[in-house]
């Protein structure tokens, strides 16, 4: 059901057609200087990085349980059932918490605009909703970027590693990282070489904050009773002291007299 992208770096030829297709689909400019940029930015949502004859793509991983969607205070970022993590720019207040929180540091900002927005790859949610593959997968001439059902792609990735174990590092990046991602990566060189963190763990990050947030209703209920109780007891103590003629301060229920 849930869709995904499998990128196999061993099949990539660095033609950058995925970059061009992505820019076209998202209405972004694309020319030679931009093609030469090797970092993601607000105007370049995916990049092909090269180190000698080894290549690696970078795009939004479209996490299964996305950190960005959990931290966004206005729900601008959402995980769709088809897989893509979408961004509703009409909600965004520009707080950049998604940028801070994303374990892959994917969301980028329009720093030079007076009214900036966040930009990130949305796995071509509009195309995917119509049953089409993402623009990058459709443009890929070698099949290095492949679109399909995530489960099927995962099985295929395992298969490829099993068939040619010396050609790949034994790691499907995105299978378990932070609870799994819709984008899966295969590589012949360690992922760290291209700046991918391999120590992210398999727990989804939103749990870390949810665990704390879920205590709030209890805290409010117990807290109000506790504070009210203290107010009552300490107030009564002062009243009793006053009635017994001991030097007490009497009860005060509010403002100054």
């Amino acid at each position, binding site marked *: 059901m849930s869709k995904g992208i499998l990128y196999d770096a061993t099949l990539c030829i660095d033609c950058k057609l995925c970059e061009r297709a992505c820019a076209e689909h998202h209405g972004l400019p694309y020319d030679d200087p931009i093609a030469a940029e090797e970092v993601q930015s607000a105007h370049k949502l995916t990049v092909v990085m090269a180190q000698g004859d080894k290549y690696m793509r970078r795009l939004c991983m479209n996490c299964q349980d996305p950190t960005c969607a959990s931290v966004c205070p206005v729900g601008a970022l959402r995980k769709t059932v088809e897989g893509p993590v979408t961004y509703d720019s009409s909600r965004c*207040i520009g*707080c950049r918490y998604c940028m801070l929180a994303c374990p892959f540091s994917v969301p980028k900002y329009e720093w030079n605009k007076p009214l900036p927005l966040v930009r990130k790859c949305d796995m071509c949610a509009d195309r995917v909703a119509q049953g089409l593959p993402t623009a990058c997968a459709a443009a890929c001439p070698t099949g290095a970027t492949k679109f399909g059902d995530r489960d099927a792609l995962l099985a295929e990735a395992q298969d490829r590693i099993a068939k040619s174990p010396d050609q790949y590092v034994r790691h499907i990046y995105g299978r378990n990282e932070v609870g799994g991602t819709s984008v899966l990566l295969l590589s012949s060189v360690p992922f760290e070489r291209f700046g991918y963190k391999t120590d992210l763990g398999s727990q989804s990050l*939103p749990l870390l904050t949810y665990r704390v*947030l879920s205590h709030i209703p209890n805290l409010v209920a117990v807290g109000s009773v506790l504070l009210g109780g203290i107010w009552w007891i300490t107030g009564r103590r002062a009243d009793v002291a006053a009635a017994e003629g001991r030097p007490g301060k009497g009860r005060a229920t509010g*403002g100054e007299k």
Partner: protein
Amino acid sequence: MTRFKFTFWKGVLAVILLAGAYATVLRFARGLGASTHLSNAFPWGLWIGFDVMCGVMLAAGGFTLTATVYIFHLEEFKPIVRPTVLTAFLGYVLVVVALLYDLGRGYRIWHPLVMWNPRSVMFEVAWCVTLYTTVLALEFAAVIFEQLRLEKLLRIQHAIAVPLVIAGVLLSTLHQSSLGSLYLIVPDKLHPFWYSPLLPVLFFVSAVCVGLAMTIFESCMSSRHFGKQLELPLLVRLGRALLVAVLVYSVLRFEDLFQRGAYRLFALRSYETDLLLLELIMGLVIPIVLLLIPKVRQSAGGLYLSSVLVLLGFVTNRLNVTITGMEGSAGVRYFPKWTEIAITASIVGVAFAIFALAVKYLPIFSAAELRPAQPEPEAAELLHARS
């Protein structure tokens, strides 16, 4: 003498505001890229780290003191409630002003109130800060009603005072701790000196420390600049509470550093180690030593020094969490651009100016206080005898 001083500070404020005005134009005409050193690698800087994180923390005196007076019925502290509530209210209003600079689309600042995402810590903070600022405004409204002799409104305000205070304490507990929870989501990005599952607890306890320190600091400043009688016996008691609060925080903090094994990183002398030591020594170790000495604890000067150190220490802590601790994983060094500093300084300057004006024109320091207070030494002796 006073007059010259006043003019001097007015001059300083004018220069700061001028720089701030230029920075404001730059910020809104050319965007955050032109007016800050923020980048894709480092999206949160001084405005979040200082203006918001420290701003909210420094305004914690409001809930600490209203709880002391209205919930715990320690009425002797009443004379200093008003200036503290005023500072808290100003603090929160200015935090919102800072947010308008920092948010890419400040005109949508109200969005979290209607576009919900209850899984987001930021959503919760937005709601709490909105509600708490309202609570502070209502608490402070008494002063305005009194000035304008609006008896009926004043009576209504009195009637809801206690529920208001309880709501204020709860809301403060929630968002002071949640500012720490914001960083629970970045276990792989925040340096182990500062990332801890205890972040919300540490942020809350430190807010209480800072609330007490800020109240002492403010009383000392007010007595110096507004000719207000110093409430030394009250400050001495606040000083004792501060000592206990800082001790509690220290136990939590050091135990946490030890249990997570972060202390091992001390061996590697690094930029982070230096700034952690600065935070721990300045904000915890020295104030604890100072406050443990009875002579220091019972003198205005000693209390002033200790509270300033606590404030600086915890400001360093917030900046360490938001900036120092995030630089390593970002792979960049961040130092604010001068325009960022100009806007922060302007906001702080405006806060001081409004406070001074409010003290001048509103009954902030209640009439009782302006009468010559009982001779200080006597009160101090009495207190000494009791403790």
